[in-house]
C-alpha cells in the first residue's frame, strides 16, 4: 500500500494522506474537470474550421491573437466559476432570479436557438469527416447521436466527466499533427510573441477572421455550461483556487491546441492547397503529410464535434431545467429528471436529423449562429458582470474587486464592438464595401 495515501474503507470519495502536497494534489484532481472541459469543448468543429482557415489564409500572422485571447478567456470563465461556487446555481437561474422573467426568457431562448444551430454544424462536421473515411452519413450521424445520448443517461456525473476528460486529452494529437507539418519554429515563436500582419496588408477579410476567432474562442454557451457544471459538481468555497487553476490549465491547453490547428492550416498554405473545409484539407494533405495527418485531422474533427455537442447540449438542458424549476442533474436517473434528459435528447436528436436532410443550406445555419452569437455574447457577459457586482447576492467576499471590474469592463467594451462589427458584416456586408 502506498504509505502516503490510504482510502478510508467506510466512506467512498474520502482519502487520508500524510503529506501536504499530496493533499493539495488530490484536492486539485478532485476539483479538476469543468474548466478543462469548457475550454476544450470550445475547440469544436466550428473552431477547427476557423483556426485552420486562419492558418491557410494568413499563415502564422494570427498566432499573436491567440496569446491575447488567453487572459480574456481565463478572466471570463474565472468569473463564471466564482459565481457557480458562491451560489451553487447555474447562470440561467441567476439571470432569471435577479433580472426577472423577461431577461431570463430572452437569455434562455437565445441560448437554446444559437446552441441548436451550433449543434447542426457539429453533426455536419461529423458527417463530412466520416464520409472522407468511407463511412456513410446515414450510419455515422445516427451512431454518433446514439453514442452522445448514451454518454449522459447513465445517471452519473463523474462517469460523464471522466469520459469527456479522456476525449479532451485526445486533443494532444493536434500537437503531433502540428509537428509532422514541419513548421518553421523560429517563425512560429516570433509570430506568437510579436504581432505581425500579412504582406497584403489588413483587409476586410483579415478583420473578419480576427472577429471570427474572438467569437469562436469566447462563446456564450461556455458561461452557462461552466457555471452549471460547477454547481453540478457541488464545488465548495475552498475549492475556488483549484477551480481557478483548472480554468487556467484549460485555457492554456485550448489556446495551444488552437495554435496547432493554425500551424496545420499554414502547412496547407505553404503547399498551395485549396480547400472549403478541414475534411477537404485532410484529403488534400495526404500525399504531402501522409496518412497520419489525413486520418488524424479527420478523426480529431470528429472528436472536436463530439466534445462540442455534449457540452453545448448539456448547457441547453441545464439552463432549461434551471429556469423551468425541473430536476436537472446528471446525478439523477432518466426517470428522476425526465425533462432535463428530454431536452438533451431533443437537442442531439433533432440536430442529427436536420443534418441528414439533403441539400441543407449549411451556410444559412452558420449565418444564424454568427448573428445570434453576436446578440447573445455581450448580453450574457453584461449579466455576468452585474451578477459579480451584486453585493446583496454574493456579499463582500465573492464580488469583483476594483481591478477585476476594470479588466472585465474593458473586455466587455471590446467584445461589444467586435460583436457589433461581426453582426453588421454578416447582416449587411455592403455597409463596409
Amino acid at each position, binding site marked *: 500500500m502506498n504509505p502516503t495515501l490510504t482510502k*478510508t474503507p467506510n466512506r467512498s*470519495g474520502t*482519502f*487520508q494522506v500524510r503529506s501536504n502536497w499530496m493533499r493539495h494534489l488530490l484536492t486539485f484532481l478532485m476539483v479538476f474537470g469543468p474548466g478543462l472541459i469548457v475550454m476544450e469543448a470550445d475547440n469544436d468543429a466550428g473552431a477547427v474550421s476557423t483556426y485552420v482557415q486562419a492558418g491557410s489564409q494568413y499563415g502564422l500572422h494570427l498566432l499573436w491573437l491567440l496569446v491575447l485571447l488567453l487572459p480574456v478567456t481565463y478572466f471570463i470563465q474565472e468569473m463564471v466559476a466564482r459565481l457557480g461556487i*458562491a451560489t451553487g446555481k447555474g447562470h440561467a437561474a441567476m439571470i432569471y432570479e435577479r433580472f426577472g422573467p423577461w431577461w431570463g426568457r430572452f437569455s434562455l431562448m437565445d441560448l437554446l436557438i444559437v446552441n441548436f444551430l451550433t449543434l447542426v454544424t457539429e453533426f455536419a462536421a461529423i458527417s463530412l469527416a466520416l464520409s472522407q473515411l468511407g463511412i456513410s452519413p446515414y450510419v455515422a450521424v445516427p451512431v454518433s447521436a446514439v453514442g452522445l445520448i448514451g454518454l449522459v443517461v447513465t445517471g452519473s456525473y463523474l462517469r460523464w466527466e471522466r469520459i469527456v476528460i479522456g476525449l479532451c486529452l485526445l486533443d494532444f494529437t493536434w500537437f503531433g499533427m502540428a509537428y509532422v507539418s514541419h513548421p518553421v519554429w523560429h517563425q512560429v515563436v516570433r509570430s506568437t510573441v510579436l504581432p505581425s500582419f500579412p504582406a497584403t496588408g489588413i483587409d476586410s477579410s483579415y478583420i473578419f477572421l480576427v472577429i471570427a476567432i474572438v467569437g469562436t474562442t469566447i462563446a456564450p454557451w461556455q458561461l452557462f455550461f461552466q457555471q452549471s457544471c460547477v454547481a453540478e*459538481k457541488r464545488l465548495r468555497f475552498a475549492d475556488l483556487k483549484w477551480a481557478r487553476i483548472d480554468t487556467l490549465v484549460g485555457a492554456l491547453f485550448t489556446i495551444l491546441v488552437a495554435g496547432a490547428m493554425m500551424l496545420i492550416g499554414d502547412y496547407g498554405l505553404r503547399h498551395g492547397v485549396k480547400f472549403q473545409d478541414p475534411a477537404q484539407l485532410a484529403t488534400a494533405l495526404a500525399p504531402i503529410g501522409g496518412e497520419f495527418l489525413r486520418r488524424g485531422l479527420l478523426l480529431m474533427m470528429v472528436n472536436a464535434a463530439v466534445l462540442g455537442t455534449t457540452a453545448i447540449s448539456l448547457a441547453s438542458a441545464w439552463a432549461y431545467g434551471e429556469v423551468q424549476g425541473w430536476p436537472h442533474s446528471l446525478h439523477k436517473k432518466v426517470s428522476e429528471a425526465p425533462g432535463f434528459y428530454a431536452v438533451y435528447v431533443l437537442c442531439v436528436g433533432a440536430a442529427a436529423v436536420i443534418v441528414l436532410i439533403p441539400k441543407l443550406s449549411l451556410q444559412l445555419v452558420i449565418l444564424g449562429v454568427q448573428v445570434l452569437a453576436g446578440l447573445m455574447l455581450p448580453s450574457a457577459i*453584461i449579466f455576468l458582470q452585474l451578477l459579480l457586482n451584486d453585493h446583496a447576492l454574493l*456579499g463582500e467576499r465573492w464580488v469583483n474587486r476594483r481591478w477585476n471590474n476594470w479588466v472585465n469592463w474593458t473586455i466587455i467594451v471590446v467584445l461589444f464592438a467586435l460583436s457589433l462589427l461581426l453582426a453588421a458584416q454578416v447582416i*449587411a456586408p455592403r455597409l463596409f464595401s
Partner: protein
Amino acid sequence: MTTSLTSFDMPTYTVIHPLKDVPEQKCGGEYLGKMSMTRSVRISLFVLRGYLLLMMGMLAYHVLNMAGILH
C-alpha cells in the same frame, strides 16, 4: 473538504470529494427577488437594450434587403 488531524507521530489530512462532502450554505440561499436598480445596473441594461435594438434593426434591414423591398 480537507481537515488536518494530528496524531502523535505525524499529521494526517483527510481529503473529501466535493460530491461526497456535506453541502455548504451557499450565497443567496433563499429567493432574493430582482436585483435593486442602482445607477450602474440601469445604465448597463439601457446600453444592452440599445445594442439589441440596433442588432434587430440591422437584421430587419438584411431581411428586407434579401426580399428585394429596399431596391
